[in-house]
Structures are given as C-alpha cells and as structure tokens.
C-alpha cells in the first residue's frame, strides 16, 4: 500500500541482563497509514513503551538492544541508519510525546528556548525573531493562552496540562510524518485529559500526520483511534479497526480487556478483572502467552504459539480458537 508511512516487521527488542534475557518486545509487526491513529493497547509492562522507544532508536541504557526486525519509515529501514542520519530523522520525520509532563521539560531553560531548538532544525538560517515568532505561533496552535507571555516562562511556572501542550508543540514543530504518543494523558487530570485528546485529534487532522497512540485505557481508544493493536507479553495478539474490535473481539484477552472498561451506558454493568498474572518476559511459555489466564485453554494452546489468523478484512488475531474468514 502506498499510503503506509510506517511499517514495523517482526521487531525484537530484548534486555540483556546478568540474570537473563528479558524479551520485552518479541516479534511485533504493524503498519501505520498516513493520517491514521493507531492505538497500541495493553497492560503495563507488556512492551508498549519499549516498542515506541525502539522506533525512535532511543533505547534505555542498561542492556536493551533491538536484535531483529525492520522499521520501515517511508519504505526505508531506519534501523540501518547511522546515528547521525537517525538524528536527522528524529523530530523531523518521527517524533514523540512522553508520558510525564512534569519531567519532560528541562527545568533550567525557558519554554521558548526549548521550542526554539526544535524549530531551528526545520528553519536553518532563519533569524531569531522569525523563529521566536514561529514559536509563539506553535504555542498558539496547541491552544495556550497568551503565548507571548508564556514563551519566556520556565516549566515550573506552568500547570501539568500546559506543560504537556508545550511538549506536544515541541514534538510536532518539526512537522513529522509519524507522532508517537506514549500515554500522554495518564499523568493529567481527567478534565484536562479530554481537552488534550481533542487537541491531538485536531492537530492530526490539520497536518495529516499518523499517530501511534499508546495507552492502557480502552475507553480512550474508542475516542481517539481508527485502528487498534492489542499487545500482550511482548506481542501484538489482535489488530483491527476499532469498531470491529469493540463489536466482535476475537482474542480472549481483548474480550477481557473490553469487559473491564466501565461503561457509561447500560445499567448494573459488572466490572470484570482478568485473573492471574502475565508470564515472566524472562521465561516465556512455548505456547500461547495468554494460555495461563485464558478461560478457553486447550492442550494445543500450551504446546505451540498460534499463528496470526485473518478474521476479517483488516482484522487479525493470534489465537487457536478463532477461524479465518
């Protein structure tokens, strides 16, 4: 497909520790189309954030390495780029919003300074006043009131929601093709969360970038995303259009996740939780990784990992119990 901006194939990022190998990302594949919002959902610790950092090639220190797979950005594999080439790609073609606005901004530089650094890369040789004008415009774009005053302020003078808007402004100032949003609203108040999501949606509509939206909250997925990929223990277990996934989830894990979202409508909705713990990423079972928590488990689930089954037009699931359409 020509409008695919980002394609990830069989990505493996492991932590090599003294105690053993933690297979945090273990064979992840998905694709992202121009102007689309893809949700990446899963419990904490399932490898969502590490997938994002692998795409940015900003792995945490201490033994994390991407050992296998391809990340095709506009058709070229960025895992093969040199560090210097990768720096050119970051911010300009692929960018990211981090989880915690309180620590994402450098406390000793003003907001304007930090925004300027990002804009300068796109506008090489522009005068300072031009760049500052653009920085003000960028703040206005993320709906910050009185940006002329805000631009000289330091992060500690702003609220969390406002800081996250600034982080957003910085992330998109390079006009990237792909924006990764790693649980951008988790640290915000509920009312602010909604505003921020609307803002992201609007920005995305304005410049047609693709968003990889990482969250653990299925409720947010329904509001934000076009398609959704469900991740469990280092792999994507189900992927498809939001509507289909909500209406007819195929994988038992997805079903359990959706059942655990509190519904606004419907009376006496009983909240379900998923029993048990996900398997240790250091010692993964040979068979289906959800088998130990699955209500429909059978012997062959324990013996071998199920292949990816096409259940609908764009809908896939990794489960023995579903049949191909």
């Amino acid at each position, binding site marked *: 497909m020509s409008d695919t901006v980002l394609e990830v194939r069989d990505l493996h990022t492991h932590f090599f520790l003294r105690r053993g190998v933690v297979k945090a990302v273990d064979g992840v594949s998905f694709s992202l189309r121009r102007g689309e919002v893809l949700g990446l959902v899963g419990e904490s610790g399932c490898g969502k954030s590490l997938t994002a950092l692998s795409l*940015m090639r*900003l792995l945490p*220190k201490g033994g994390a390495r991407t050992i296998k797979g391809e990340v095709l950005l506009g058709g070229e594999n960025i895992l093969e780029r040199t*560090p210097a080439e990768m*720096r*050119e*790609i*970051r*911010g*300009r073609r692929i*960018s*990211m919003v*981090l*989880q*915690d606005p309180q*620590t*994402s*901004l*450098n*406390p*000793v*530089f*003003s907001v304007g300074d930090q925004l300027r*650094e*990002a804009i300068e*890369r796109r506008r090489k040789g522009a005068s300072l006043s031009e760049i500052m004008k653009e920085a003000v415009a960028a703040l206005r774009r993320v709906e910050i009131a009185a940006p002329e005053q805000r631009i000289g302020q*330091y992060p*500690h*003078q702003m609220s969390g929601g406002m800081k996250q808007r600034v*982080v957003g402004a*910085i*992330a998109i100032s*390079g006009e990237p093709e792909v924006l990764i949003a790693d649980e951008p609203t988790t640290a915000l108040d509920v009312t602010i969360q909604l505003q921020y999501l609307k803002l992201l949606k609007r920005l995305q509509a304005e410049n047609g970038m693709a968003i990889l939206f990482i969250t653990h909250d299925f409720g947010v997925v329904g509001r934000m995303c076009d398609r959704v990929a469900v991740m469990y223990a280092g792999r994507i277990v189900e992927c498809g259009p939001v509507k289909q996934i909500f209406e007819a989830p195929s994988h038992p894990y997805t079903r359990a996740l959706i059942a655990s979202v509190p519904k606004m409508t419907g009376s006496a909705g009983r909240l379900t939780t998923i029993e048990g713990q996900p398997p240790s990423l250091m010692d993964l079972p040979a068979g289906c990784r959800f088998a130990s928590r699955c209500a429909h488990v059978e012997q062959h689930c324990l013996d071998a990992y199920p292949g990816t089954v096409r259940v609908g037009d764009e809908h896939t699931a990794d489960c023995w119990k579903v049949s191909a359409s």
Partner: protein
Amino acid sequence: MKRFIARRLMQGVVLLCMVATIVFFLGRLTGNPVDLMLPEDATPEDRTALIQTLGLDGPILDQFAIFVGNAVHGDLGTSIRMRQPAAEAFFDRLPNTLMLIPWALLLGMMLGIPLGVVAALHRGGWLDRAAGTVAVLGVAMPSFWLGILLIFVFSVELGWLPSSRMGGPDHYVLPVITLGTFLVAGFMRITRSAMLEVMESEFVKLARIKGLSETTVIWKHCLRNALIPVLTLWGVFVGNLITGAIVTETVFAWPGIGRLTYEAVIYRDFPLLQAVIILESILILAINLGVDILYAYVDPRIRLA
C-alpha cells in the same frame, strides 16, 4: 528573592553569634583568660589593666557583653606576639590568601567538571575507572603531605619550581595544586554523579527526540542541570578551603590568613587565634551567602519562587 537573601542574612547573623559565644566560653574553660591573653613577661599592672578593660572582675554575662561590644566595634583584642590589633593583622594577610583561593577553585573546576562529564559518558569504562582512582587517592592523601611531596619532586629533585613564599607566577603553582587537588576530586565526583542522574531524565529524552546533536544534549541540556549541585559545592568547599589554606600556607610559608592561624596556634597567641576564628567565620558566611545568591540565579526554580 529579597526575602530569600534577607532570610539567609538572618541565619548568618545567628550562626555568627553562636560562633562568638563558643569562642568566648572556650576561652574561659580553663580559668582566667587573662593568663591566655598576656605575654609571659607581663607585669601585674598590665594584668590588672586588662582585667579592668575586659570587666573580668564582673559576672560572666557582663564580660560577655563587653566582649560582644568590643567585637562589634572592631576590637577583637591584641595579638600577644605581634603586639598589634588582631583584626589588623588578619586584614593585612587576607589579600594574600584571596590571591590563592580563586586559582585553586579555578583549577578544581577546569579539571574536575570536564573530567566528571567524561567519566559519566564512559561510565564503567577505563576512563571512568582511572578518574575514580584519582578521586579515591585524592581524598586519601593528607594535603599537607601532598604539598611536601610536590616540593620534594618539583623543587628539590627537578628544581623547576620554588618551594616557598610569595613571588612571581611560578610561586603559585605548587600551592594551588596542593589546595586544588581535593577540589578536583570533589568536582569530578559530584559532576559525574549529577550527570549520570540527569542523563537518565525524561527531558534529555525529549531533547534527543527533537533530534538535537549529542554535543548539545550533553554539554547544554545535561551539564547545565548538573551544574546546579556542582555550584553548591562552592559553599561546601569554602570551609574546606579555609582549612586547606591553613595547611597549604603552612607548608609553603605563604603569608596569608592560614599561616596566621597556624602561627597563632604554635605561639599560643590566644587573642589572635580568637580573632582569626571569628573573622574566618564571617568570611565563610559571606562567601556562603554569595554562593546562595548565585545558586538562586542559576536555578530559575529558586529565582522566581
């Protein structure tokens, strides 16, 4: 900001009062301080005169009032050995020390901070380990012995540098190294650990996401934050620098306040020692206040609070 300075100033005054009180009562620990304050050849008339000026025949609190009163007017007693007002002797020597300390600080920062950054960047590598060894050694060597060792190597054996007294630029080299070694070790260690902490932070990740070059990320975003604790070190080092100056100036016969302190000790010149300690305390507090203000300037979180 004004409130911040005012508060620090108040704390300084309180601390100074504590120092003065301790000094005063220590002098009275072993009976009549007159015996400590007069030369051995003093006449009984001298004795009576001093007892009267200090009010030593009165109750101890009155004596303390007189002591404080005199001190406020700049009278900190008279040196026994030099037969000169102690405060005067101190201020005569102060410039010589103030010509030594900035160079030692400069050496400490110019060497220690870049070394700390490099050690943090190569964490666990041979550079880091080499720097760590130097730091461990720098703390384990008594600085007076280091000074003597330097004299032995560079003055006695090699004959490159003078071993004592003030003079041209070459006279500064060995004392500055002696005084600065501890600082190099200290600045290095703190810069390293501060850098390691900052390098793991989210805002550094964001700086990388922006696509900034590694040079900008390390030397601008990381170092500027790491410098905040490093700057506080100045304050910590003021006290150490004064102690270090006593030792260094003794080894190199440098005519500063450190040497004056040493002389006051070995000649049992109590009035001089008492004055020197009070004045050095004021110096320490003043520099600390300066550092606090500078600190507030570097860290916007304090400046604008």
